[in-house]
């Protein structure tokens, strides 16, 4: 496989992982605008472990994921006392603080960036993306998926029906953070160089937007969103900036005419239930 194609596929795999990192909290009603901060945490911790302590990249990525999860858990307690826009703002602020903190850590390169020696190839990263998808697929289809959706829809009812609202919100947030950390670790160890400035709020916004583009009603939406976002520049030969311009226009079009995203439950049903005519359902 050519180096270029491999790069694109790795990017796709990482974007898919990020998509699911954002997806779970969104299903739980949380807009995490600091997801890039968790990605940075995973990237830098794993890079530090392989660079400074000679760890192998895979165990380092795993360790970084666990530590990022711990950070997510710690941060979840104060942050999840807020709701809605306050929550989005708190995650945004947190993401900025994380990146700014890393910029000041000269041990990992500070503002000059951090080269990463150890390398993870496409097969490993692709395999991990598949595992993440499978894990989230399974989780989404357990009572957990049902329950976080319930919490997102109506916290009062969820509470009255016996669900542990705080626990569910914390779990969704923490798992999302962990997966973002994993994505960061993989990115660091494939592209061999990480820069704190890249893990900024705009990256978080891109991830959230392409997940919403794909659709959050089903487990397949994030996949589509990640694919569109990654492959758009390949399809249109233009410069990187034009790709973002078109992406932004896509989002605007979507929010105007189909805010629930491309892949919805009714769409899936229409595509796959062609054998049995389904009753006309609301979208």
């Amino acid at each position, binding site marked *: 496989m050519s180096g270029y194609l491999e790069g694109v596929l790795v990017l796709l795999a990482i974007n898919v992982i990020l998509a699911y990192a954002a997806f779970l909290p969104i299903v739980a009603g949380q807009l995490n605008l600091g997801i890039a901060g968790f990605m940075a945490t995973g990237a830098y911790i794993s890079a530090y472990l392989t660079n400074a302590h000679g760890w192998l990249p895979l165990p380092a990525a795993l360790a970084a994921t666990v530590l990022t999860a711990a950070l997510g858990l710690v941060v979840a307690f104060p942050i999840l006392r807020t709701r809605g826009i306050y929550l989005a703002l708190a995650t945004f602020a947190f993401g900025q603080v994380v990146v700014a903190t890393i910029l000041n850590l000269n041990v990992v390169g500070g503002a000059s960036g951090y080269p990463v020696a150890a390398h993870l190839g496409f097969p490993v990263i692709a395999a991990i993306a598949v595992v993440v998808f499978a894990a989230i697929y399974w989780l989404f289809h357990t009572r957990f998926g049902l329950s976080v959706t319930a919490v997102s829809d109506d916290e009062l009812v969820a509470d009255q029906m016996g669900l542990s609202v705080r626990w569910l919100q914390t779990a969704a947030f923490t798992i999302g953070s962990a997966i973002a950390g994993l994505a960061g670790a993989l990115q660091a160890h494939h592209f061999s160089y990480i820069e704190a400035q890249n893990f900024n709020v705009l990256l978080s916004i891109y991830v959230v937007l392409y997940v919403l583009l794909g659709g959050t009603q089903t487990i397949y939406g994030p996949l589509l969103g990640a694919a569109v976002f990654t492959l758009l520049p390949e399809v249109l030969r233009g410069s990187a900036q034009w790709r973002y311009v078109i992406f932004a226009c896509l989002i605007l079009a979507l929010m105007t005419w189909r805010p629930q995203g491309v892949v919805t439950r009714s769409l899936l049903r229409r595509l796959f239930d062609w054998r049995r005519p389904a*009753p006309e359902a609301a979208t």
Partner: protein
Amino acid sequence: MSGARPILALEAISKRFGGLSVIQDLSFEVMPGERVALIGPNGAGKTTAFNLVTGVYPVDAGRIRLDGADITRLPARKRIRAGLARTFQNIRLLPHLTVIENAMVSQYARNPSLAGMLQPVSLARENRWRREAREALGEAGLAQYAQEATGGLPYGIQKRIELVRALLARPRVLLLDEPAAGLNPAETEALAAQLEKISASGVTLLVVEHDMHFIGAFCRRVVVLNFGCKIADCDAEAVGDDPRVREAYLGTETDLEVAYAA
């Protein structure tokens, strides 16, 4: 129903919102298997009383007991796990879940553990929880709506779905907030039949209602609230004669007669 203890007991409950006293020194008991109606003019505090019992907000004073156990400080989610379920006056179905999923939400209350949370309810079509929910919907005559989104459904259907949802928690006590409101006569009859079945299976019912016919036919006992206080607690037949009750409904005999005639 021998001298057993009450399955639900309110003991001198009080609640204020800001400066406004909404419930004052409210006490009554419900025995196991009873069907009790909670009535009163608008603003009497009936839904507030429900909210206090189910834990939406805490009482300012008094105690609530479920089968003898003090649940006054128990968090709401644990009350349904203990066997106390409810429906809502303004239907509160979850818009992003299908009908069957809405019903399934309360099943967790019967198995509130990590294992319970990780049950693969949507993975296999024939999962036992999903099957159970489908059967419950079928019993309520709602089987064909199982996969539907809740948003576009008729009001009467939505109300019945809420009832199924409450029932799937297998409660011992069921609090129903205006279950007949907005239903046409056919639906009201179907509701009454359904409630008969539920009561026959041993569930205690506490019903807030305005439809006195419905209450008269179904509930043996009536507790009357006005301005947050209990003003009567008697047989359904006798409640219309109670002078304080008549006075509560704006003192005009016509109002109560109109209510009976409705």
